[in-house]
């Protein structure tokens, strides 16, 4: 039982990284820190999927080796090659993650231009004060 748990250590590290990212997103007040937590969360998911494609027993990168003249088309053993399907899916996930980071950083710059701070509690205090002033004025 114990060795069965220890053999999957990649998945344990994946859970640890996911919890670090989740804590940074929920517990930290600075908005850039929240964004860093989201990046860590996304890479932990990619770690899970890449770990699924790994095989034991000398499996290598999926590049087929012929003799260069179209011969040597022997029977391909699936156990000799890693599973490339999770890799291709995660290639898309990396590009999507950098796109979301770019949009989030642009939003952060707009927030800073309006409120002159990036701390969440200060922004909420300014908003609450503005709302109270508005109701008082009318």
């Amino acid at each position, binding site marked *: 039982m114990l060795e069965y748990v220890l053999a999957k*250590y*990649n998945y344990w*590290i994946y859970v*640890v*990284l996911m919890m*670090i*990212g989740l*804590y*940074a997103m929920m517990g*930290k*007040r*600075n908005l*850039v*820190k929240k*964004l*860093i*937590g989201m*990046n*860590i969360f996304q*890479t932990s998911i*990619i*770690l899970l999927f*890449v*770990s699924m*494609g*790994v095989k*034991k027993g000398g*499996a*290598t*990168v999926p590049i087929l080796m012929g003799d260069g003249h179209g011969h040597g088309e022997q029977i391909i053993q699936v156990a000799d090659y*890693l599973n490339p399907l999770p*890799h*291709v899916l*995660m*290639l898309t996930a*990396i*590009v999507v*993650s*950098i796109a979301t*980071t*770019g949009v989030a*950083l*642009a939003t*952060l*710059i707009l927030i*800073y231009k309006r409120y002159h*701070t*990036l*701390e969440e509690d200060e922004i909420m205090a300014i908003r609450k004060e503005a709302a109270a002033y508005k109701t008082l004025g009318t």
Partner: protein
Amino acid sequence: MIWQLDLILLLFIVICAIAAINIKDLMSAVIILGAYSFFMCLLWTEMGAVDVAFTEASVGAGIGTVLFIAAINKTARRSKD
């Protein structure tokens, strides 16, 4: 897959992740996040996912760090937590 190298890289990754969310200077946190991305890239080369590895090295660690630094230069550098 060499499990000793795998364990060392995973250890460095966890240390970099904890350091990146605990440092108050945002510029240092972003640079440590770049180091985290490069350790992830090494881990994927070691796991045999070479296409994911070079995409992460160029897009994740390169462009991501540049975008973060540009945004921090336009906004505040200090963080309260």
